[in-house]
């Protein structure tokens, strides 16, 4: 597809189970940009826009990826899950509640990325070791908490889920 051809063409992205037509987009737009600026889903945050910080993390076809590095037009036919799609009817998930309880949220800028990454981690590995938690969150940067409270939050969720 050339830029001209795509000019007014519509492509469709499937985000949080819903189909969203994207109109008048430029071919070089990232998924992060399209989610935030065109689809009204500002949960994923943009900081570095080069894959280093993880604040833009979304799940695409069951893989956590940096939405800033995905070309939106190339995400057609994938299932995209953003932080907005995690809780039911706007309620907080157990992971979000644990982040609040443990003090894992300070300025909050990194939080949506961490929340998505932790959801993805615990979906694929419900009982991760400390090393596995650290490894799986190594692509998410937080400048405020020092990470201890974030690890704490993940462990709270693991033990709560174990108990229930």
């Amino acid at each position, binding site marked *: *597809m*050339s*830029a001209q051809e795509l000019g007014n063409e519509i492509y469709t992205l499937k985000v949080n189970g819903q189909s969203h037509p994207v109109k008048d987009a430029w*071919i*070089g737009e*990232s998924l992060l940009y399209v989610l935030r600026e065109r689809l009204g889903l500002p949960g994923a945050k943009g900081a570095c*826009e*080069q*894959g*280093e910080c*993880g604040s833009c*993390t979304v799940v695409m076809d069951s*893989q*956590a*990826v*940096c939405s*800033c*590095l*995905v*070309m939106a*037009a*190339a995400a057609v*036919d*994938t299932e995209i899950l953003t932080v907005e799609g995690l809780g039911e009817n706007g309620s907080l998930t157990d992971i979000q509640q644990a982040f609040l309880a443990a003090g894992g949220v300070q300025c909050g800028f990194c939080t949506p990325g961490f929340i998505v*990454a932790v959801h993805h981690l615990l979906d694929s590995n419900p009982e991760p070791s400390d090393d596995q938690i650290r*490894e*799986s969150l*190594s*692509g*998410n940067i937080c400048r405020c908490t020092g990470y201890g409270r974030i690890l704490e939050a993940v462990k709270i969720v693991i033990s709560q889920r174990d108990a229930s």
Partner: protein
Amino acid sequence: MVEVNLHGRQPQTVINLRRVEELHEWSHRHTQQTVTIGSAVPYSVMETGKIAELVPALAQAARTVGSPQIRAAGTLGGNLGTCSPAGDSLPVLSALNAVIHLIGPQGTRDVAWGEFMLGVKKNALGSGEFVHSITVPVIQGWQGYAKVGTRNAMVIATASACLVRDTEEGLISIALGSVGPTIIRCSQAEKWLRKTTSLRAGAQINADLAVEFGRRVSDEATPIDDHRSTAAYRRHCVAILAQRLLVRSLA
């Protein structure tokens, strides 16, 4: 995407390989003892599982790339397309004498690793050509990849090395990353080691010999000073990496 987001690159045409299924596949040929990996298979698939069993050094290299998010998206095709001397899969492809399968308007062709990487971010891809897949042998014997960087995650290699020990053939191959304009295959050090000692199964190597091997490997590096490190430190790193990998290969 980083070029587009931050450096004002404006693509006019985009080719989306996501739906080209054969590029996402990999296979193990038992008769030839080879593994062929599609150019769009992500690192996350190589890190564990069957590929990791068959080509452990590739799995180790894959595990050191960026972060889980980067490994879910990044591919060998992208590492070969970029052809940075710091590309983590490249020393492995070099040490294993990988064959790169290309496809383009003129048809398909196979390029040996030695003819693929031509310089910093320069490769043998012709206009309109792209990497279809990569074939590496399944080797009897130890293989490993080691990388030095400023952190444990999300770090570009200051220096790296891959060593493969083929106990059937009695050969050791070693290739270095981030210490020259291309990946450096240390053929002099390899030859010296082969002449000096037996490398077949059960062979022992003494500590002095490993140190000397490291020194000879580092003599073949051509590192530079840049914003990431100095030439002297990189030379030191590859000597230590080579020495350690050799010792591990015989443990």
